[in-house]
Each structure stands twice: as structure tokens, then as C-alpha cells.
């Protein structure tokens, strides 16, 4: 794609001829991954430029580089035409970029004003000049017509108002560019409207806003221009007026699939039946049946609630339901132990956080769930344990020097295979897979897919949660799509394609309108 030069931008209103922020050929490599590849992007004063893309498209990488959290592998960032290098968040702030992350950077025990002026407290001699601090905060609040007392403690404010404080902070250090990362993820509909109003007022004040979101309705409501990233590549940048949701969605997902087709499967006996599942206040009204020999997919964007469904059914979150049966028998799942005893296996999405036992060996990581079975009196039957691990090493084509090697020395793909082996060793009927190939290289990914096919062919039932659309289409027979904690519909057969999933997943409204 050719970079858009200002001359080829007919509409964007502001008369400014110079982009306030421009990135050229921005590239960021991680070991084994090109997270962002030669991307050009710019934004003008008083413009709202939306940055959209699937999970993993490179949006976060780009934001982190603008914020000075990550440094580019190559390419440059220009502010008002001058190249800048950001070694830290402070550098980026000094240059006039304010980034509002999804996870706010506010200190909960301090007041609004203290947060707004953190690190830049007005001082009189050695003491903080509280009066100036409060009055200057009030000025910023008035500018945004926000009604928050600068003396309020942050932790007393609801999330939506905390976000406004973040915006106020960016304005207080005279940011020329404000980046908002999924700003509405935690907001109610009414709060979203309020936020969009504030974005418009920023626009009139001449501030450039980079609006990162995958909620397309919002994007079209607010953006002047839209840039789509996919797999770290720049796909299109166009005026919002020249685009529609359909075009943006196909730009977001329009990759040709390198994977093979999903095999034909014949579902067998009913394994898991769930009716009216609710998880805390996050997810409501989930009902499905899962049969032996099939893969049921749960899809949705970040914050849609589909990951909570899997965690809830494994006993990691409090759940309520009107019916929950496993192999025809009612079960109650109080925690991971009772889930495992009911023959449910779970491969968690955050392998490092809740899967790996980094100090233990490959063998010990495999057997941790089945030690009861390997017990011989007081001792673990070491020979049997080795045999089990050896078996899975061959079965999963695990590449390690020794089964007694620490798991932390393995590649991501091989680590994931061990975690899979752990669940398989537990001899489960129903396997929950959450992001089974996250952080796994392409080769291992294909192997894991084949392995899942084999498992399902052998009569396992798999509940798959994945934010990678090609993956879920490759693996699942049916897919339930979530948005805002509600199932939006089920897709299967010919209807199961990325466009349809995205269309359901990007619905902003709570109710499904079918």
C-alpha cells in the first residue's frame, strides 16, 4: 500500500497542512514475530483518526511505540515534522502525545488533581502549591465541561469518570495528540455517548485524536479517517465518508487462509449441556449443547465475555445456571478440582500466568494432574510417570532435549503442547481450550490443529475460545459469537465465515436484532 500523502487527502477539514504526528515505515520485531511492518500513519490537528484491526493486528504495538513504552525496530516518528525518539513515556508526553490505555495509569488513593499533575506538581519553594494545582485542574475540567471535583479521590470515581480524568491529564500537559485505546470497552451506552461528545470537543479545540477501537459503529460515528491494520501491515487509510462497515470488516479479516479446511465431523453423544449460564454480572443467557466428536467455538472481541464462559465452566468464576449436565448427569462445578474430577480439561489462555510450572520439568508439568493415579503407596511411581510423559512426547511430537529438562527452556509452541498433554493425561471427556495457539509459531500451530482434529475424531468434545478468527473457523463446527457479555447468534456451515463473525461481534447494541 502506498502511504497517503497529505495532498491525496481531499476532505479532512482542518486547514493545517502539516500533520501534527506522522509515522513513517514504523516496524517492530519481536522474537519470531513481525508485530508491525513498515506502517505509515498520520494525524492532523483537529482530526479524529480511527485505527482499527483484529486482535493481534498491531494496534497495541503501534500505541506502545507512540507512548514510548516500546521502541521501534526501524522507522521514525515525527511531531510537527520533526523526528522524535521516545525512550520513555515522559519523552512521549513532552513531545505532546497523551496515551490513554485500557488499563488506566491513575493512582487510586490520590485525588483527581494530584493525578492530573503527577510528576509536574506546581511547587512554591519545596512545598506543593495545592491552590494552584486545584484551580488549574478545575480549569481543565471546565474546558472539557466535566463535573468532577479535583479533590475527589480517584478510587471513589466510577470507571467512566476515571477515564475523563485521564483525558484531563493529557490536556493538562498540553497534549497535541491524544491516543485512546479501546476507550469504550468498559463504558455503558450512555457513557459512550458522553465520551464521544468529549472527543468532539477535543476536535474543535484543535487536538488530534487517534481513536483505537474495534467497535465499528462508534468508529463511524466519530472518525474523520479510518486506518485498518492487519497482521502488522497497513491495509487502507481512507476518509470515513468513503467507507462502510462492510468494507472495513473485509479489510480487517481479508487474509487468505493458509490453513487446511476444517474436517467433516459427525457429532456423537451429548456431553455438556448448559442452559441460561450467567457469570457474575459479565455474561448472561448462555445456552448450548456440546457433543462428543465436535468443536464448539466461542468467538468475540476483547471484553465480549466469551473467555469468561470457559473460565466459569471450569469453576474459576462464580456461575449461575438453570441447567448444567455432563454426560446426562447434573453436575456442580465448585472449582478446578471438581471440574477435573468431572473429566473436564482446561488449557488456559495465559500460559505463563496460569499454566506453566516454570521450575518443574517437562515430565513433572505433564503429570501434575494425575499424581494420584501414579501413586504407589507413599511414593510416585517414577517409571510409570516417565512412561506417561514419554507417550505424550511422541504423540504430540514434543521437541525437548530431555523430559527432565525445565519447561521454561522450551519454545512457546512446545510449552503449549506440554500444557495440552497435562489435560490429555487427565483423561478428560470435555476439553476447554482458550486461545490454544497464542504466542505459538506457525509450525507448532499447524501441529496443534492436527492434534485437536485427532482428539475430536477420537470422541473428545472440545469447547474452543479463540480471538483469532481464522483459527476458530479452521477448528470449530459451530461458533457462538459474543458481544457485550451476550451471545449474539450461532453460526455454522456456510454462514461460518469471518465477515459474519465480525458483523455479530461488532454489534454495539446489547440485544440481538434478528
Amino acid at each position, binding site marked *: 500500500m502506498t502511504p497517503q500523502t497529505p495532498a491525496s487527502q481531499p476532505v479532512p477539514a482542518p486547514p493545517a497542512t502539516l500533520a501534527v504526528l506522522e509515522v513513517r515505515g514504523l516496524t517492530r520485531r519481536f522474537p519470531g514475530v513481525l508485530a508491525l511492518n513498515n506502517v505509515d500513519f498520520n494525524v492532523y490537528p483537529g482530526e479524529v483518526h480511527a485505527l482499527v484491526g483484529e486482535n493481534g493486528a498491531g494496534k497495541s504495538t503501534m500505541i506502545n511505540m507512540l507512548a514510548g513504552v516500546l521502541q521501534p525496530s526501524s522507522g521514525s516518528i515525527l511531531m510537527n515534522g520533526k523526528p522524535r525518539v521516545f525512550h520513555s513515556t515522559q519523552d512521549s508526553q513532552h513531545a505532546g502525545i497523551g496515551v490513554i490505555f485500557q488499563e488506566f495509569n491513575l493512582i487510586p488513593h490520590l485525588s483527581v488533581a494530584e493525578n492530573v499533575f503527577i510528576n509536574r506538581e506546581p511547587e512554591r519553594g519545596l512545598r506543593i502549591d495545592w491552590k494552584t494545582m486545584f484551580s488549574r485542574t478545575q480549569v481543565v475540567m471546565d474546558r472539557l465541561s466535566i463535573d468532577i471535583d479535583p479533590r475527589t479521590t480517584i478510587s471513589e470515581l466510577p470507571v467512566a469518570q476515571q477515564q475523563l480524568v485521564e483525558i484531563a491529564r493529557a490536556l493538562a500537559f498540553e497534549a497535541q495528540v491524544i491516543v485512546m485505546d479501546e476507550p469504550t470497552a468498559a463504558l455503558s451506552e450512555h457513557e459512550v455517548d458522553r465520551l464521544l461528545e468529549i472527543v468532539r470537543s477535543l476536535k474543535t479545540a484543535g487536538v488530534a485524536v487517534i481513536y483505537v477501537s474495534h467497535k465499528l459503529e462508534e468508529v463511524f460515528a466519530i472518525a474523520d479517517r479510518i486506518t485498518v491494520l492487519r497482521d502488522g501491515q497497513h491495509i487502507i487509510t481512507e476518509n470515513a465518508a468513503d467507507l462502510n462497515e462492510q468494507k472495513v470488516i473485509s479489510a480487517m479479516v481479508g487474509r487468505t487462509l493458509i490453513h487446511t479446511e476444517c474436517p467433516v465431523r459427525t457429532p456423537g453423544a451429548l456431553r455438556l449441556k448448559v442452559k441460561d449460564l450467567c457469570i457474575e454480572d459479565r455474561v448472561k443467557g448462555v445456552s448450548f449443547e456440546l457433543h462428543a466428536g465436535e468443536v464448539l467455538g466461542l468467538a468475540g472481541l476483547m471484553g465480549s465475555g466469551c473467555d469468561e464462559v470457559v473460565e466459569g465452566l471450569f469453576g474459576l468464576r462464580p456461575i449461575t445456571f438453570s441447567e448444567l449436565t455432563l454426560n446426562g448427569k447434573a453436575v456442580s462445578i465448585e472449582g478446578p*478440582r471438581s471440574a477435573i474430577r468431572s473429566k473436564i480439561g482446561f488449557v488456559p489462555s495465559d500460559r505463563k500466568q496460569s499454566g506453566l510450572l516454570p521450575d518443574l520439568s517437562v515430565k513433572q508439568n505433564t503429570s501434575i494432574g494425575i499424581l494420584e493415579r501414579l*501413586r504407589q503407596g507413599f511414593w510416585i511411581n517414577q517409571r510409570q510417570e516417565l512412561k506417561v510423559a514419554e507417550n505424550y512426547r511422541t504423540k504430540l511430537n514434543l521437541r525437548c532435549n530431555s523430559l527432565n529438562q525445565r519447561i521454561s527452556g522450551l519454545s512457546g509452541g512446545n510449552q503449549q503442547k506440554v500444557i495440552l498433554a497435562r489435560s490429555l493425561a487427565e483423561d478428560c471427556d470435555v476439553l476447554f481450550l482458550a486461545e490454544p495457539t497464542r504466542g505459538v509459531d506457525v509450525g507448532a500451530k499447524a501441529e496443534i490443529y492436527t492434534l485437536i482434529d485427532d482428539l475430536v475424531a477420537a470422541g473428545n468434545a472440545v469447547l474452543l475460545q479463540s480471538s483469532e478468527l481464522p483459527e476458530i473457523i479452521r477448528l470449530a463446527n459451530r461458533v457462538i459469537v459474543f458481544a457485550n457479555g451476550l451471545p449474539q447468534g450461532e453460526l455454522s456451515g456456510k454462514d461460518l465465515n469471518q465477515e459474519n463473525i465480525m458483523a455479530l461481534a461488532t454489534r454495539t447494541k446489547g440485544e440481538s436484532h434478528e
Partner: protein
Amino acid sequence: MSNRFIKFWKSYSIVIVVLVVAVIISFMAPRFFQFENLMNVLSNASVVAIVGLGMTLAIASGNFDLSVGSTAAFASCVSFSLVPALGIPLSILAGLITGAVVGLINGAIITELRVPAFIATLGMQTIVRGLALIYTGGKDLYLYGQTEYKVLSGNALGIPMPLIMALVIAIVLSLVVSQTRFGRHVLALGSNFPAAKRSGVQTTWVVWGVFAIVGVTAALSGMVVSAQVLTANGRLSTGLELSAIAVVVLGGTPLSGGRLTMLGTLMGALLIAIINNGLNLLNIPIFYQELTVGSLMLIALAINLSQGFKVSSLIRRPQ
């Protein structure tokens, strides 16, 4: 070759350090290598090693026990006070049970009240110390002529009993860790708590078990010291927790949990005992011993941390 050397050095550096220090001290103070002195050193090392071995298990499980000193005192006071009524074997058993009970209470505070181990055992340190002082009324308990109690501190076949006990405990705990389900669960817990829980490990029981074991080793350590002088009191073993943690860290067990070395802990205890003995032989005032132990611990910790381990157990919150 160099790789193998590094691995060897990582596993056995503490043994080499112990040998080097021993040789240096024997040059400076020839009396060091006299049989009686050596047995004395081994005996002193063993008293700390016994509780250090329990502490090793606690640290490997991602926990800490700061109450071992008080537990040692309370258990030996209980044991001493029961000698007239129960006789010596049963009163020793009573002391061990006291240690186990204190450990179980520690465990319960951590798992049921969800207080981090660091804070829970710090509180228990003071509470149990208070109990010991109340129980004895602040007085010393003597066992006049009951030299049979010295079975804990005397010699068997010329070898100090504390040394035998330390070796037995080291072997037993090593086997438990490497060969049993409980041991595996301890390591899993210390390596990654949420992952262990998701794998079906009954984390509550494991924590209780670990603290019960630490309590027993603390009690034993306290009773050995009391047996040496046939006197117990509520102020016994003050600061034992720091020595115990120091020998674990010196031995090379990472404070981040998930790994341990019982041999290292034995060697750590030996190193401190040798240095203290050397300072005594050289007539260096006893106050300098504290300085030495503290500095050694910090150096060992710095080395420990530079290998990429984190002191997460200090702040980890039970889940």
C-alpha cells in the same frame, strides 16, 4: 566443558566455599581442626540446619515462616514442663506436636484468612513468644539430673545427635520432595500458584502440611538447644527465623519458590557455624558474628537475585 563447569559450580559452589573458609580458618586458628572443636561446630550447625531444612520447604512452596524462633521456645517449654508427668519420650513427642499445631495455625491463617505468609507468621511470632512467656511465667524451667533428655543433644557412637537428626531430616525431606505427591505439589505451588490450583492441586492442604513440618523442625531445634543446657525458657531461640532463612538463602534455594536444595541448606548452616566458630577462636567479640551473618545473607541474596529469581514470596498473596 565450560557449560558443565558452570552447572557444577552452580550446584556445588557452596560446598567449595565451605571448604575454602574452613581451610583459611584452620590456618589462622590451628585449634579449629581439633576433633572436639569440629564436633562442636557440627553440632551448632545442625541446630540451625534442622529448622533451616523445614524453612527450605516453606520457601520452595512460595511461603515463609517468621515464627520458628518463638515456636522453638514454646515447644521446648511445653516439653520441659511435661517431663515430670509424661516421662522423657512422651514429653519430647509433646514438644513436636506443639510445633506442628503452631504450624497448622500458621497455615490456617494463611489459607483461611488469606493473610500473606510473611504477615501471618510475623504476627504468630509475637503471639507464640507471648504464649511461651505466659506459660512459663517468664521463669527458667530446669531438668535437674534428667540427663536422659540429653538424648537430643548428646552423642551416638561419637557422632553428635543433632547432626544425625539434621542428616536424617535432610534425606527424608529430599525424598518427600522428589518422590511423593505432596512434595511435587509443594514445588508446583511455589512455582506458579494459579497454575497449581488449576491443575487440581489441593493448595490448602499443601500449605498446612508445609507449615506443620516447619513447626516440627522448629520445635526439634528448640528442644535440642534446651537439652544442651537442660534449661528452657520463653526467650529461647530469639532471631532463629533469620538464621534459618539465611542458611536457606546461602545454600542457594531461590526465594522465588519452586526449587530447593536440602544439601545447600546443610552447607549454608555449616558455613555460618564455621565462620562463627572461627571468630570465637580468634577472640573476635561476639557482636561481630551478627554483622558477618547479616552481610553473608545479603551477599547470597544478591547473587540469588542476579540469577533472575524474584523475591515474590514476600509479597505474594494467597488466593
